């Protein structure tokens, strides 16, 4: 049972990572496509896909955290993160970066995401058009920061292999 849980945790951790990192790469492509067409159609395209991406990021983060916690519980060591061994310091760094990623993500979602698009009167005078606001630039910068942080976390995960308890 312990082994099954361990493998399940590892698999879910990988899937979470794929969703989160893959989602960010997808977001990068989407942003590039949208920016190529700075018009109403591009904005509507973004409006349709941004909520879906936010859901993917959310699911990825939840999977990463729950599978990580599952494995810590399976290992069942008091102190949980193996401090003061090198393994523990690496895990601590991963957890701190993880918290920064979540806080940054929450900030994007609460403060910037709802204000990315603005409805303006159409220049033709008929109906309205969607335009991108300065909040969009903030979303992009913060999403890049999150991608950078998650890549550092992945690198730390790789470093765990070489840490000696």
């Amino acid at each position, binding site marked *: 049972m*312990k*082994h099954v849980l*361990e*493998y399940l945790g*590892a*698999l879910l*951790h990988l*899937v979470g*990572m*794929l969703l989160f990192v*893959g989602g960010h*790469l*997808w977001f990068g492509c*989407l942003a590039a*496509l*949208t920016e190529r*067409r700075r018009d109403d*159609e*591009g904005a509507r*395209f973004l409006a349709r*896909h941004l909520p879906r991406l*936010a859901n993917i990021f*959310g699911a990825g*983060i*939840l999977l990463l955290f729950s599978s*990580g*916690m599952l*494995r*810590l519980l*399976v*290992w*069942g*060591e*008091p*102190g*949980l*993160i193996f*401090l*003061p*061994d090198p393994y*523990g310091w690496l895990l*601590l760094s*991963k*957890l*701190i970066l*993880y*918290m920064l990623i*979540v*806080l940054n993500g*929450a900030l994007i*979602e609460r403060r910037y*995401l*709802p204000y990315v698009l603005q409805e303006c009167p159409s220049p033709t005078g008929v109906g309205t058009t969607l335009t991108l606001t300065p909040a969009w630039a903030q979303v992009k910068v913060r999403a890049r920061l999150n991608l950078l942080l998650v890549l550092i*976390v*992945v690198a*730390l995960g*790789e*470093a*765990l292999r070489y840490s000696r*308890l």
Partner: protein
Amino acid sequence: MVRIRAQHRVLGAVLTVVLSCLLQRPCALAHHGGLGIEGDLVQWALKVDQWQEEGIAEGHRIKFLSYPRQPVLGGSTRLVFEIQSTATGQYVTGLTAQLDIRTPDGTQRLVPLPEITGVTAYYEGTVTFEQEGEHTLTWHSTAGNVPFSTTFRKTVSRSPLTGDWPTLLGYSTVAAAFLVTWVGLVLSVQRRFATAWR
């Protein structure tokens, strides 16, 4: 719009192919954000029996771990040692070993450390600590008429949740990560419902 949608579909197809390739790799190769660990995957992954300290005395490398890592007052703690020759790297079996445990108030007791049958060069004893604080554990044995010994230290705490700073820091960090995740989840769900109700 149609062009963007078409480009989006192509990207989707490429990403699906990449994801399928990655997911087809055996999951057994995954470990804690790392990939492709060496040796016995299961033993390495469970990590509960990794050596915590080691000492060298008279040409012998003495590896030590306690399980649980943080001994708790009144609880049973396994103290495990493995002996290896520093010259040849070979494991040393057939030793008669004992552990001298010195409590914080200075009292001493000797615990025999029999070799574990079926596990080469493993010597293990189970003790119950009755005092809180730092204990000195000294391994004593003789190999080829040459006595050798080495000392390790273990701090016994009243609760598994407190004790030394690494334990406290570990639990605090995990609790903080849990809290941040929970707050993030609540804010996220709140925003979705607020949007739906608007």
